[in-house]
C-alpha cells in the first residue's frame, strides 16, 4: 500500500461520509428516513438495487468461482428473469398500493399478530448477523491486501456507514449507493481492461481459457458445490425469491420510488442491464487469473486468493487504492441498506406497536436513528465472535439456509393463494424449518430431490445447494396440506393483500376510481399560497395531464438529474382557473418537497 493508495482511500472515505451526511437534511420524518419521502426516480432505485446485490464477499467469491469454472460463474446473477413477472405483476403492486412498511407488517395484515412476531424475530436475527458477516468478510479481504487488523477495518467501515445512515436514512443510502454502484461496476470493467492490456490483447486472453471455461453453465449435477441444478434452485429460485420478495431493504427501496411505473422501470433496468454488468464486474478477475496462469505470468494461484493476487499483479499504485475503494463500496452499499432495514423493523414492528404506540413522529425518527447506531454496533460486535468461533459463522449460514425456504414459501403462498391460512403460515414456518434442521442431521432425506448431485459433505455441509429444493417442497407441501385441512380459517379481509387486478389495488390505494387516462407532464411556474395541501391548476394544464380534481399528482423540480430528490406527492385540488403554465401550490407542500417556488416545477398525474 503506497502513499497514493492511502490518499485515494482516505479521500474516498471522506467523500462518502460527507456526501451521505449531506442528505441528512432530507430526513425530517420517518417517511423520509425509511422511504426517502417516496419520491425517487427509477434510475436511482435501479442502481441502488444493483449495488445492494454486490456485497463485500462478491468480488472474492465470484472471482474464485470464475477461476475454477470460467464463465459459468455468472449463472448466479443471470437467473433473476424467471421470477420477475411474478414480482412485477404479483408482489410489487401489492406492496406498493397497500403501503405496508415492512414484511412483518404485511404478515400481520395477511395472517395475524403471531406471524408478525415470529417473522420480526427471524428477520432481525438474520439481518444483524448478516451485517456482522459483511463487516467480517470485508475485514478478511482487506487484511489480505493490506495486512492490518480485521476488526480495525471493520470499525472504520462501520463508523462511516453508521454516520451517514443515521443522518440521512434512506435518502443517504440511495444517493451513496448510486455513487458506489457506478464505482464498483466501473472498477470491475477497468480491472478487465488492465488485464487484457497486460496480456497483450483479447485474443491472448480468449485462447488462454480452456474450452470448458467458455460455457455459460456448469455441468448439471457436478461438482456438488457448483452443479447447475443446485445453483438454479438455491440461487435462482430460493435466494432470488428471498431477495425480491422478502428482503426488507429491497422493499424499502421500491417503496421509495415515486410511482408504480417507475418501480417497474427500475426492475427492468436491474434485470436487463445491471445484473449482467455486475456479474461481469465481480467475476472477471477470476477469468484473468486463469489466463495469467496459463501464459505463465502468475504461478501457484489458489482460488480464494484470485481477486487479491490478480488485483495486486495488475494495478499500479493509485489504481490499487481505487480498486480497494470499489471493494469497500460493495460492502457499504449492502450494509447501509441492512442498517436502514433493521431500523425500520425495530421502529415499525417493535417500538411502535409494542413499546410506545401513538407517539409523535419525531419520537419515532429519534428511535430510528438510535436503532441505526445500535444495529451497526451489534453487527460490529459480531466480528470478533466470527473471528474466534468459526462455528458461529457456520451457524448463521445454516440458520439462513434453514429459514429462507419456509419464509419464501409463506410469502409466495400468502399473496398467490387466498386459501392459505394463518395456521398454515405458522405451520409452514415451524414445520419447514424443522424439516430443514432435520436434514442437517439426516442429509439422506434430500436424496430424492438431489437430481443425482452428490452430498459433497457431512451434516449441514451436505447437499448445500440441493437443500433449497428440498426445503421449498417440504414448506409448500406443509402449507398446502394444513390450509386444506384447516376448516376453521378465520374470515379475514384480504383485499389488497393477495394477487388481484391492478386496478382494484389502485382503487383501494386512492380511495376512489383511479384515473388511467394517459396524459403528459406539464411545466409550470408557481404561486405559493397559504392553504394547506393545495395544488390549483389551470383547466388547460389539467387537460394536458389528463387529470381531474382529486387525482394523485407528483410535483417535482424540473431538473431530471435530481432524480426526484426535490419533489412531493399531492392531490390536485382544483382545475378551474388561472393561466396555463401557472399553478398555485400550498407552502406546506413546497416545504415538504424542498421545492424552490422561484424555479419552474414539473407536475404529472400518478393516478
Amino acid at each position, binding site marked *: 500500500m503506497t502513499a497514493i493508495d492511502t490518499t485515494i482511500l482516505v479521500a474516498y472515505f471522506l467523500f462518502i461520509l460527507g456526501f451521505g451526511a449531506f442528505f441528512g437534511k432530507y430526513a425530517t420524518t420517518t417517511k423520509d428516513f425509511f422511504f426517502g419521502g417516496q419520491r425517487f426516480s427509477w434510475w436511482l432505485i435501479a442502481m441502488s438495487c444493483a449495488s445492494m446485490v454486490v456485497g463485500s464477499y462478491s468480488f472474492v467469491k465470484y472471482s474464485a468461482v470464475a477461476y475454477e469454472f470460467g464463465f459459468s460463474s455468472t449463472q448466479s446473477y443471470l437467473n433473476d428473469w424467471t421470477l420477475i*413477472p411474478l414480482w412485477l405483476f404479483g408482489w410489487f403492486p401489492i406492496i406498493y398500493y397497500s403501503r405496508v412498511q415492512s414484511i412483518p407488517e404485511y404478515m400481520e395484515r395477511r395472517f395475524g399478530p403471531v406471524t408478525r412476531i415470529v417473522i420480526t424475530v427471524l428477520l432481525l436475527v438474520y439481518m444483524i448477523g448478516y451485517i456482522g458477516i459483511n463487516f467480517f468478510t470485508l475485514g478478511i479481504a482487506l487484511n489480505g491486501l493490506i495486512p492490518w487488523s480485521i476488526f480495525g477495518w471493520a470499525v472504520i467501515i462501520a463508523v462511516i456507514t453508521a454516520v451517514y445512515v443515521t443522518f440521512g436514512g434512506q435518502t443517504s443510502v440511495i444517493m451513496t449507493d448510486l455513487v458506489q454502484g457506478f464505482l464498483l461496476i466501473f472498477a470491475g470493467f477497468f480491472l478487465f481492461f488492465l488485464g487484457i492490456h497486460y496480456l497483450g490483447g483479447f485474443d491472448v486472453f480468449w485462447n488462454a481459457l480452456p474450452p470448458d471455461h467458455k460455457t455459460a453453465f456448469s455441468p448439471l449435477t457436478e461438482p456438488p458445490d457448483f452443479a447447475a441444478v443446485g445453483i438454479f434452485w438455491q440461487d435462482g429460485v430460493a435466494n432470488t425469491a428471498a431477495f425480491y420478495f422478502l428482503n426488507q431493504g429491497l422493499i424499502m427501496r421500491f417503496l421509495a420510488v415515486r410511482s408504480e411505473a417507475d418501480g417497474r422501470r427500475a426492475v427492468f433496468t436491474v434485470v436487463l442491464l445491471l445484473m449482467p454488468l455486475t456479474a461481469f464486474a465481480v467475476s472477471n478477475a477470476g477469468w484473468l487469473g486463469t489466463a495469467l496462469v496459463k501464459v505463465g505470468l502468475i504461478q501457484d494461484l489458489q482460488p480464494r486468493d484470485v481477486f487479491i493476487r490478480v488485483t495486486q499483479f495488475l494495478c499500479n499504485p493509485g489504481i490499487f487504492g481505487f480498486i480497494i475503494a470499489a471493494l469497500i463500496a460493495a460492502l457499504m452499499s449492502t450494509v447501509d441498506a441492512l442498517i436502514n432495514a433493521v431500523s425500520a423493523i425495530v421502529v415499525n414492528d417493535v417500538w411502535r406497536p409494542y413499546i410506545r404506540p401513538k407517539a409523535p413522529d419525531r419520537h419515532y425518527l429519534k428511535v430510528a436513528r438510535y436503532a441505526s447506531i445500535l444495529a451497526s454496533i451489534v453487527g460490529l460486535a459480531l466480528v470478533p465472535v466470527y473471528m474466534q468461533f468459526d462455528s458461529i459463522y457456520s451457524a448463521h449460514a445454516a440458520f439462513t439456509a434453514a429459514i429462507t425456504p419456509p419464509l419464501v414459501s409463506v410469502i409466495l403462498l400468502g399473496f398467490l393463494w387466498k386459501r392459505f391460512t394463518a395456521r398454515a403460515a405458522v405451520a409452514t414456518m415451524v414445520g419447514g424449518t424443522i424439516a430443514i434442521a432435520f436434514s442437517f442431521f439426516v442429509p439422506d432425506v434430500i436424496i430424492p430431490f438431489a437430481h443425482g448431485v452428490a452430498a459433497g459433505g457431512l451434516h449441514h455441509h451436505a447437499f448445500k445447494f440441493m437443500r433449497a429444493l428440498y426445503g421449498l417442497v417440504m414448506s409448500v407441501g406443509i402449507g398446502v396440506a394444513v390450509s386444506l385441512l384447516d376448516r376453521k380459517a378465520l374470515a379475514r379481509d384480504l383485499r389488497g393483500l393477495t394477487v388481484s387486478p391492478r386496478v382494484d389495488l389502485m382503487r383501494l390505494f386512492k380511495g376512489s376510481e383511479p384515473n388511467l387516462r*394517459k396524459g403528459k407532464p406539464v411545466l409550470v411556474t408557481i404561486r405559493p399560497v397559504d392553504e394547506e395541501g393545495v395544488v390549483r391548476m389551470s383547466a388547460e394544464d389539467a387537460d394536458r395531464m389528463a387529470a381531474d380534481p382529486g387525482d394523485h399528482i407528483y410535483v417535482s423540480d424540473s431538473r431530471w438529474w435530481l432524480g426526484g430528490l426535490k419533489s412531493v406527492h399531492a392531490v390536485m385540488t382544483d382545475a378551474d382557473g388561472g393561466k396555463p403554465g401557472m399553478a398555485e401550490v400550498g407552502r406546506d407542500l413546497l416545504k415538504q418537497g424542498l421545492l424552490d417556488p422561484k424555479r419552474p416545477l414539473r407536475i404529472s398525474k400518478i393516478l
Partner: protein
Amino acid sequence: MHGSDASFWYQYLVGSLIFGYGMYLGFRNHDWSFHKNERGEFILLVLIMLGYMAVQGFFQFLGPRL
C-alpha cells in the same frame, strides 16, 4: 449432450414454467387485455428472457468452439 448443455435446457425449461406462471398472472390481473400501455412491458419481458437465452446459448454452444 455435454453435461453443461443439459444445464442450459434445464434452466430454460423449468425457468420458463415459473416465468410463464408470472406472465399468466400478469395477463389475468390486466383482465386479459393487451392494452397499449402494458403491451410493451409484456413484450419486453419476453424479449429479456429470449435475450438471456440467446447470450447464454451463444456461449454455451459456441463458446468452446471459438
